[in-house]
């Protein structure tokens, strides 16, 4: 994500601001998405929001996430180019606008949308979400709501491949799912993995700081040295990258927790810069200060 950000800082930063306000804003022309071929019919589309996973084959095209409303047309065109067909199945890793914002357009192109039931509840507004600005987050039109929902997960058996969709407990939000392509050993972690940058832990959508670390550790125990991991944001990584991310979060939580235990107010904790050792994880969307605030607030809960 960092390299991507450097390449197009203005557009990316502007679009990332939409992440927690899934509202179709008028945008200019977007740069063409970049794709990575992982073999076995699997591709990653790095565009302007969360990373898209694509599995192509004769039984139908399977897609993970769909970025923003205004990038949907470009992404659908890219999927058509890669896979030779429009998506038949689409899984949302969670409800945020940089991952599920293209739902309406993808559903219109024929995709059957699957997600954890809390994704539907937050997209529809049945459960209210609070944006990073502290205001109620906008809901989506009905056409964008997932049609098939689950509480624990589902398996797809497509193109001679088993694809496991598994809900994880409250972490980034309260409706996250990861997707594992069993044979090729490729795991899409959604926003449970920001590769090399501070993660977003969305306390306003039922997320949890300690839950986030817990899920990362559980996932680490399940992957092996050959697993390729598609992060929600950033470049495709592996077990070592996940390990680095866990070490950062574990250290950062301990450092902020120490400030809380010392009786610091949030302002004093921020001023003490407990995350200084991990300052290089800062990026345009999540600064060292904002992540300190998230950890402080989340740990205080």
């Amino acid at each position, binding site marked *: 994500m960092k390299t991507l950000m450097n390449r197009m800082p203005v557009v990316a930063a502007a679009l990332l601001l939409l992440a927690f306000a899934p509202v179709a804003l008028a945008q200019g022309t977007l740069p063409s998405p970049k794709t990575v071929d992982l073999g076995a019919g699997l591709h990653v589309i790095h565009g302007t929001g969360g990373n898209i996973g694509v599995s192509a084959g004769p039984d139908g095209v399977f897609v993970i996430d769909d970025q923003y409303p205004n990038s949907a047309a470009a992404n659908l065109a890219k999927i058509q180019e890669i896979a030779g067909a429009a998506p038949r199945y689409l899984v949302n890793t969670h409800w945020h606008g940089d991952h599920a914002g293209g739902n309406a357009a993808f559903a219109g192109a024929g995709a059957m949308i699957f997600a954890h039931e809390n994704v539907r509840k937050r997209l529809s507004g049945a459960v209210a979400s609070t944006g990073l600005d502290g205001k109620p987050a906008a809901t989506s039109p009905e056409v964008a709501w997932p049609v098939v929902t689950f509480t624990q997960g589902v398996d797809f*058996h497509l193109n001679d491949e088993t694809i496991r969709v598994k809900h994880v407990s409250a972490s980034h939000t309260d409706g996250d799912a990861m997707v594992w392509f069993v044979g090729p050993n490729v795991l899409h972690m959604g926003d449970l993995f920001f590769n090399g940058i501070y993660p977003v832990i969305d306390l306003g959508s039922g997320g949890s700081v300690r839950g986030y670390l817990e899920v990362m550790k559980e996932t680490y125990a399940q992957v092996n040295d050959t697993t390729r991991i598609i992060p929600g944001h950033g470049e495709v990584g592996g077990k070592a990258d996940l390990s680095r991310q866990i070490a950062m979060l574990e250290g950062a939580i301990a450092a902020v927790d120490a400030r809380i235990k010392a009786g610091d107010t949030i302002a004093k904790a921020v001023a003490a810069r407990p995350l200084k050792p991990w300052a290089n994880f800062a990026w345009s969307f999540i600064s060292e200060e904002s992540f300190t605030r998230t950890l402080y607030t989340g740990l205080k809960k």
Partner: protein
Amino acid sequence: MLVRLTATAIIGALGLSACAADTTPRQPDLFVQVREPDPPAPPRLPAPTPAPNSEAFARVVDLGQGVSMLMGQGGNLGLLTGEDGIFLIDDQYATNAAANLAKIEEVAKGNPKYLVNTHWHFDHAGGNAVFATAGATVFAHENARKRLTGETPSINRQGAVSAAAPKPAWPVVTFLAGVDFHLNGQTIRAIPTPRPAHTDGDVMIYFVEADVLHMGDTYMKDSYPFVDIGSGGAQLGFIEALAKAIEIAGPSTKIIPGHGELATEADLQAALDMHRGARAAVEALVKQGKSLEETVTAKPLAPWNSRFGKPGSFITDDAYVTVIYNELKKS
């Protein structure tokens, strides 16, 4: 029961033609029993039912809000029509799938997009390949898929391993804990039974707004159940499945049985009471140290025979006693 059903009618209504003489290329070997009825039991009438034919469902029972029950040979189908896509529960036999598909197109003005199997048996999921080819995505319990693929072997009535279904018939989306569909103004919950009942991959399907519950073969109206031990079924599972169904249902819920006429919550309650009573009655004899033969001869299900064990029923009281006895002895 005002109308006394003949053996033929019951076997037909229960879709048990699968047990008849094998005349079709892919004869479904579904209805597995642990054993033939015991010697003391009255001899069963020969089943005069023809093998599955190519005819479409014969009746459409309108249940409101776009939901209907389709009845013919094989299991009862559940259908939801609407602009978001046609949703179907079960698809009967391979032999009548094409006719069912054509008739659904006529009734619903399109082909099913969503198809849920209540379980793997070929009188319910036999049409999968035809419906999938026509564009349906097939959903089922993970264990239903494993039995259709042959990954988990199923033992048929003759004690042999059942043949696997062809690949196009295998469900594409599987689950263990269930899924919800949000379609055509309905919330549709696919609810696995709490534990194996008819098979180890049973699903009940509830249309929340229309208040219609499809039971699959966890419930056959006014009949002793078919516990398919060769597919991982167990009698205790029927008790828990019906208890769960009654929890979901209310007094005005329309109950679609796997086989038989539309039913009510009161009918489910009667069946649940029967299952519990039957288990307790057999258990009492087991505790007295009775042999299987003695237990069957004692006719412990006599109090329920007038409703659930009418003469000529496919599942006789003796057969049901045998299943319960063996299950209790095993545990």
